[in-house]
């Protein structure tokens, strides 16, 4: 937001991705951390930099945010901060969303699937249908990018 040079902005995003990958790693979310490091810090940086080739490196003029926008932002921030107090305690075991399903997955994954990594057994096994939808979404996204960025036939 405060960086005028887009190149430094991209580097800041990359560093942010790497740091959040480290945070995920410390929270024992190794799979998420691996994804964040590969997608956030790897591929998206490359794509941002390829986009940067088509535009100017510097931001032309920075807009000063208008007064109603600031009020709206502060209002939303206050509302969200107020809602945070209703969230369950971080990592608490006995809450509703943690009590039934995840316990089943953790206990049964080894005997039902023979797969020690619970994340994999949930993603590909128990929630296989969701993952199918995810793959189809990625496929459609790839097709869309190809459609938008395809080479124009040289008739102009």
């Amino acid at each position, binding site marked *: 937001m405060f960086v005028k040079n887009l190149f430094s902005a991209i580097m800041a995003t990359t560093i942010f991705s790497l740091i959040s990958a480290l945070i995920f790693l410390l929270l024992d979310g190794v799979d998420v951390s691996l994804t964040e490091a590969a997608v956030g810090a*790897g591929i998206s940086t490359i794509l941002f930099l390829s986009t940067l080739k088509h535009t100017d490196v510097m931001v032309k003029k920075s807009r000063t945010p208008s007064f109603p926008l600031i009020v709206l932002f502060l209002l939303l921030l206050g509302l969200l901060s107020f809602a945070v107090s209703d969230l369950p305690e971080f990592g608490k075991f006995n809450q509703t969303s943690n009590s039934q399903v995840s316990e089943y997955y953790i206990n049964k994954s080894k005997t039902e699937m023979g797969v020690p990594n619970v994340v994999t057994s949930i993603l590909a096994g128990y929630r296989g249908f969701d993952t199918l939808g995810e*793959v189809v979404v990625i496929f459609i996204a790839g097709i869309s990018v190809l459609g938008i960025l*395809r080479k124009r036939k040289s008739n102009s």
Partner: protein
Amino acid sequence: MRHHTIPRIVTKLLIPVILLFGLYVQFHGDFSAGGGFQAGVIFAAGFILYNIIFGLDIGKSILSVNTSKSLMALGVILYLMVGFLGILLGGNFLEYNYLSNTPINGQLLGIFLVELGVGLTVSNVMVLVFYSFNDISEEK
């Protein structure tokens, strides 16, 4: 980039390691961290690095745009096939228990094939997006 010595040498050393790590994450995803999605991205990142250093022409001679498109679709088809195979062999859609002689083996086989489909699709989508971003810059 081919004339820069340090990036070229470092890339040459790194690419086998990156690709091997991608394959490890792909095929060892049941037992350690990772899975098809992560492996696909890592594999694509290695290939894109090769493209950046040695040029898109050499990269496209290894994996052409059309091959990549077919492989991208093949991943989704493989996933769906595993799902329908479950129905054909007497179970529900995406039920892996019937794929092999014992349910555990069926689960392992099903998860393996499904992850392979995910990996194929993801890596080829990434490579294709990279190709099409750079095709534009060639036009200008």
